[in-house]
């Protein structure tokens, strides 16, 4: 049975996008594919949320865009991470870990 697809909160989508782009310039379709592949199909990004998120991140100066030739030779819009974006990625990652840690604590406590 396929693992359940979970809905992604907006905040965490940003985190995933930043991480994906950190690995190298990539276009929108590529980002969606990569997240799906690496999470082994557990996370599937809705295109409806992907592009608004991309534009918002670009807006805030975390991503840079450029039209380049894709692997197939067609023109596509590539996103890359800025320095500000790299810092944001670190911050968001730290926060994610903090929250996740807190939740784990509570779960553990309740059981005992």
């Amino acid at each position, binding site marked *: 049975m396929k693992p359940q697809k979970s809905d992604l909160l907006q905040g965490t989508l940003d985190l995933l996008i930043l991480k994906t782009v950190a690995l190298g310039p990539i*276009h*929108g*379709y590529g980002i*969606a594919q990569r997240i799906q592949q690496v999470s082994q199909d557990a996370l599937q990004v*809705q*295109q*409806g949320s992907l*592009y*608004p*998120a991309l*534009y*918002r991140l*670009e*807006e*805030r100066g975390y991503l840079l865009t450029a039209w380049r030739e*894709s692997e*197939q030779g*067609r*023109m*596509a*819009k590539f996103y890359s991470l800025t320095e500000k974006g790299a810092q944001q990625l670190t*911050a968001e990652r*730290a*926060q994610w870990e*903090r*929250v996740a840690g807190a939740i784990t604590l509570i779960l553990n406590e309740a059981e005992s």
Partner: protein
Amino acid sequence: MRWLRSIFRRPAVEREMDAELRFHIEELERCFQQSGMAPEDARRRARLEFGGIEQIKDDAREARMTGTLDRTVRELRAAGRSLSKSPGFTAVAVATLALGIGVNTEIFSLLDQAALRPLPVREPDRLVAFHSAGVNPGMDRNSGLKLSFSYPKYKEFRDHLDVFEGVAARFAVTGSVLHGGVADRVGVELVSGNYFDVLGVTPAVGRLIAASDDQTPMAHPVVVLGFGYWQRRFGGDRSIVGQTIVVNGMAMTVIGVSAAGFQGLLRGNDDELRVPMMMKDVFTPNWRGGFDRPLWAWANIIARLRPEVSSEQAEAAANVRYRQILDREAETLSGPYLAQREDFRKRHLDLEPAGRGLLYAVKNGRTTLLPLWGMTGIVLLIACVNVAGLVMARTAARQRELAIRLALGAGRLGVGRQLLMENVLLVGAGGALGVLLAAAIGEQALRVLFSPTANQVFRATPDVRVMGFALAATAVTAILFSLAPLWQIRQAALSDVLRAESGASARLAQVRFRKALVVVQLSFCVWLTIAAGLFARTLAKLRAVDLGFRKENLITFSLDPGVAGYKDFAAAKAVCDRIEQALAAIPGVTGAGRSAYGALSGGININRIEIDGYRPAKPEDTNVNQLDATPGYVKAIGMQLLTGRDFVASDYGPGRVALVNQAFARKYYGGENPVGRRIRSAFDRKQEMEIVGMVRDDRYFGPRQEPSPFYYTPTPPFGATSYYVRTATSPETMLATVRRVVEQEAPGVPLSQLRTMQEQADLAVGTEKQFATLAAVFGTLATLLAAIGLYGVMSYTVARRTREIGIRMAIGADRRDVLGLVLREVAVLVGIGLAAGIPTAIAMGSVIRSQLYNVSESDPMVMAGAGLVVLAVGLVAGFVPARRATAVDPMRALRWE
């Protein structure tokens, strides 16, 4: 800003977005095809997976363009929700802001228009008015303010003073306008040809008076309408320009309308007409000409300084010329004026800044404004202090919530933004409510503070600058005080904050600070309440002054037959007598009379007389107030005859007898009976009168003026006349009848200022009434705000001490004890406020001393009264939290952390 790019290069951006999304779909399609799907299926599947393209585009567009806006809106909504969770705080804060911003600025705006704002003329700072105090032999039409000069002097200043760009003259008169069968009385300003030029006023329609319109006496029957009057009377009809209207019986052509907003040089006046000075005789039939009389002082002079010349330089230069003129004129003084030569030469010319109106040029006008500035400022200060206390308390109460947010990584900036949004909402709501309040009370305030017709001259809408200032002040206060505690929360102390009993010392300090704020507010409150009490007492004392005549059951009005064409003395006398007889014949009227000037209206004639048996030390010792009156006058106005007899019908006309008042007898006869003595006019020795009676002193000039010597002659008054009609019953009901009778007897003669004497007396104390009302309003505002502040602090204190109260109740204190505990704390606060406020109020009392009448600025009754009021209000404000304290359940309180 990237979003700007989105807006300005939309087509390119849209195309880009289109291309990007299409790329994605086509890649999906290709992927499906590669995994073996048929091309059609692949395309369909891709479309399905991708979702609605337009929807995505919309969302994407939104995210792009309104990124910041969207976030702000979201934050505002969150702030709104947060505020609605504490409705008490929100309501109180908004109310405070509305009162402090709205009501306060409304009143300030009215005062600003009345006195502070510069005149709407070109470069008002360059305007000066000529002012000269000193002896004035000859006639002075405007002696009180020392701003009048003779026409020959004006001409010399105009033609020979280079330090000025231009020197203009003006003189205020009244007139009657007849047009389309309707007559009304208007204020008229006689102006020199260069008046509009010097002031820098432009026409709204047509043209204005120019130098060519002011050359020869009576040769320029032209008139300029005031903008307001043009709107009101002629409905803003442009075709009136070029037509003729009848002014004081003379046909004059309307040549134009002056610019909107220009209301002349006297605040609160909106002269309806402006007429060339050469046409003066149309309005002053009693004293014609005068253009060549160096000792007839009447014209006000205003001048514009050259840009490179300072006021001091101009004054020095002007005085050089003035000295020459005075020397020359002093040589011509003869007869009774000879002795004044030296003093006359000593007169000095001052240049007073006239940019804010003529009355502002007189020092008195300025000092009455200081207390008003002060009161407005104090109320705003109190409001700010209140808001500060409120937001500080709120931030403190939410310390835990905020600390948690910080812990979750919100960052101080993020939390700060949230608080900022809340403050923006509060100040916005308070400001909006304030504007509504201001609009609501505006009209009423105008009527109460100034006069029933003030809305023709002043605008009731609050001044935007002032409102902006008040908004800014309160916003800054709110932001500062709400964010300040935030900065104290450090990461390290986070765990402390999350635990219960922590921050106690910080909170204690904060409570002390807030209590100090409340005490300060209460002191301000005390000041304003004392001021209100003092002004109210002044008003009451003035109203209680015995005016010497009976103002009850008395109607008065003013009439000028000359404006309706009765220019002949005999004809005017005939119609006036007829009117008087008709009035006396009305059923319900017990007497009618008239005089040349009206009591409490400020006008009077002064004559120099010679008194048998009295040798004056100085010539002006025998300048006496003189009033022409008909035989019915004394009885009608209700003066009391002490000795001798009243005028009778046979006295009327020839003027061989006179009545005097007590002050006259005291000054010239040492208090002996004046009946039988003789007096004569100093300029016309043949005019000799025998004194036949003495009347009791009256306060002709108003309750504040001590009685001065008067003599009354039974001569038919000429020109404008004041009538008095005594009624048997309530005078208000007879007003319409009086008007009807006058109009019947003399159709076409407009009567003006028809009112009961009581109303006239009230007008005479207009300024005092204004002050009393203002102080009462400000005092109430301040008290309300201080009460709110006190309530806030006490609520907080009670909540904080819940545990302590619970313990007390558990060990035996009953509700009354707890009530007493809280109220005692309130009383202490109020007490300190009073102790600080009263002595400082006494110290500052000298500021308002000039406005008071027969009331000391440290009047003990007022002090006591103010103290009681503040104490009472404080106790009431503290009562609600006190009661809440008594409702504490000891069991719950002890368990509360």
